[in-house]
């Protein structure tokens, strides 16, 4: 007989692994990727690929230099690169995109000790770096002109995406400018929902993001508390603002435009950089919501999702400290 294996219980384990979660999130974000690439055309695809390849290579090099096991197949660097590309404008230069990916992986992740130890969401940290370094490039928006006529005359789906573009501001920037009332360039809710508007590659289609979000929550890849708290607060506070003054954007507009959905479901929910306690996750989501609506309404930027999440990332250790749960039977014990 061979030697028996000895180990501490339990002797069965769930199949979910870090790898399956990471690739699962990649699957969840893929509808947004597909839409972004179809809508914004070839350059968006090149940008996505550039960011992914650079992120994965940076991870491999970091791990090689630091003499750590190389774990690029776990999908985490791939996901970071992908998410970074998705929050960049579709015409963003490739060289700048890959610079962002290097910053995401090297400064956002490996300086802190690698996967699981980083304080800030790596993709957002890279995005913030690009925002402050190249303010013009990160706010250049091109919206493709969709050719409905061609779609019907040629009957081919791809001819719908004509390849012609016009330069414009994002809907959020338009809505929040002082000429907001009756600005004809603000897309309809349907346009916002489907994603025929200006914006970053991955953020434009609410529909695509929501499909991914449902998948994430069903598969339990993320905790629902953060996105629900986050979007819930944005919706509630913007409702109040809208009721107080009809010139303010509607709550639905706030939810559908900008980076809120991709931020809430794919960035704020990043487990590594959000609190591990249940209560802490509510606080994190609600805090990010308040910050986002504050920045959008009273701040200098039209968009507040990125900085809100990064700020809440910084508060994560503190939140965790004050939200440690009471152990089973603790309440009764204290009453005694």
């Amino acid at each position, binding site marked *: 007989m061979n030697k028996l294996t000895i180990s501490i219980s339990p002797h069965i384990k769930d199949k979910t692994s870090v790898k399956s979660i990471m690739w699962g999130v990649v699957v969840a974000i893929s509808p947004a990727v597909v839409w972004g690439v179809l809508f914004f055309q070839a350059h968006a695809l090149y940008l996505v690929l550039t960011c992914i390849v650079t992120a994965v290579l940076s991870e491999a090099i970091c791990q090689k230099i630091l003499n750590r096991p190389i774990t690029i197949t776990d999908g985490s660097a791939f996901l970071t690169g992908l998410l970074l590309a998705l929050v960049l404008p579709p015409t963003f230069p490739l060289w700048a995109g890959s610079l962002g990916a290097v910053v995401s992986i090297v400064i956002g992740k490996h300086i802190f000790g690698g996967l699981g130890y980083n304080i800030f969401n790596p993709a957002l940290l890279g995005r913030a770096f690009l925002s402050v370094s190249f303010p013009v490039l990160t706010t250049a928006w091109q919206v493709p002109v969709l050719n409905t006529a061609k779609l019907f005359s040629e009957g081919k789906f791809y001819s719908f995406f004509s390849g012609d573009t016009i330069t414009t501001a994002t809907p959020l920037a338009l809505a929040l400018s002082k000429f907001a009332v009756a600005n004809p360039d603000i897309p309809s809710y349907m346009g916002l929902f489907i994603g025929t508007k200006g914006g970053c590659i991955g953020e434009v289609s609410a529909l695509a993001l929501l499909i991914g979000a449902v998948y994430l929550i069903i598969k339990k890849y993320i905790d629902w508390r953060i996105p629900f708290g986050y979007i819930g607060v944005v919706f509630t506070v913007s409702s109040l603002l809208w009721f107080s003054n009809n010139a303010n954007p509607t709550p639905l507009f706030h939810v559908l435009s900008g980076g809120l959905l991709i931020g809430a479901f794919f960035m704020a929910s990043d487990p590594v950089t959000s609190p591990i306690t249940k209560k802490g996750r509510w606080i994190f989501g609600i805090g990010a919501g308040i910050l986002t609506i504050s920045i959008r309404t009273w701040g200098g930027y039209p968009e507040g999702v990125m900085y809100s999440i990064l700020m809440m990332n910084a508060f994560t250790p503190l939140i965790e400290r004050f939200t440690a749960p009471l152990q089973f039977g603790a309440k009764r014990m204290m009453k*005694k």
Partner: protein
Amino acid sequence: MFKLRPFIGGVHPPENKHLSCDKEIIPIPAPEILFFPLSQHTGAPCQPVVQKGDKVKRGTLIGTCEKLISSPIHSSVSGTVKSIENSSHPVIGRFQSIVIENDKQDLTEESISPKKNTENLSADEIIKIVRDAGIVGLGGAAFPTHVKLSPPKEKVIKTFIANGAECEPYLTCDQRLMQEMGKEIVEGIKLVRKILNSERCIIAIENNKPDAIEQIKELTRNENIEVIAIKVKYPQGGEKQLIKTVLGKEVPSGGLPMDVGVVVHNVGTLLAIYEAVNFGKPLYERAITVTGAVKNPGNYLVRIGTPVKDILDFCQVDWDNIGKIILGGPMMGISQQDIQTPIIKGTSGILVQTKDEITQDEEFSCIRCAKCIEVCPAYLLPTQIAKVVKAEKWERLSQLHIKDCIECGCCTYVCPSKIPLVQYIKLGKIKTK
């Protein structure tokens, strides 16, 4: 009926009870050599009361201890004491054990015979019988039953719960006992109710055992015993989790069920109580489930002290392909090194895993997904505890309430980084003792 709110946390591992749940309990012949570790229970170990060369019968007292929290040990066969030596113990590695050679005559102690007028026994008399019979909790923890039957006077036991949850995957012996020995179990429940004088009496069974639920319902139709079917969720068979599900009450941290006026006994224990009272039978055999990678998985009545090897030979295993032998269920059972390890009172099953089934995943760093926190039925932060243990900051462990961990294994089960959280927690507990 009102809706039960199950305890918070827990997991749903594959149940795999189908392997053995339809198999009737059959006795396994007593082996040639049996080992009786002198500690088979929570509490003080026994001292041997026999010597090398002594003749014993089935039911002969071979070890005892005067301390309150302890339980005597009886021989399960007739034969000769071969030696008293250190040998393999399923829980604590090695321990002093009485080794008995079976003479195959199966002589029985005269005291084991049907008893009359048992209904006239007082509570104290029953408790003494239970103690002398060496009965301990058969659900796994092996806490001496007579101690649980004699709560301090100031504790009023309002509710007595018979635990038929059997939440561990694979195990089916409690289910079979309820189906085959239901009548005796109900009699055992009545005995315990009499001792505890509790107004409410409940038998809780997980709803993956519809036949057992039917059977017990049928048997308790004219009794004042509630049969409650609870939704399957591991570790619902844990005393504190069961009380939370059934009564909505939380046993205080560091306290006992009696602190909330409840006492819980496993159904197998109740059967043992019935048999001790009505037949003078000490606890020398028990039902176990033998399952997993065995040719004849099923439920078997085995003599305490039978080595694992003899049982697995009887149930037929492919010895060359065995990777792991687990005593107990897959979530909390203990993997064994030595196939001579005996079955003791608290052993509820043997699970055999093939080499391919063994999960030995590489440990990744924690991604803080908090799944361990979500599933922890004690509301702890397992990943946090593991990090503190790894950093050897022992003094911080009490703030993280490490003592409240019931080691159910849910955290390790769900961890996507495959961190052996329970292992770190156990180490932490040892270091902070």
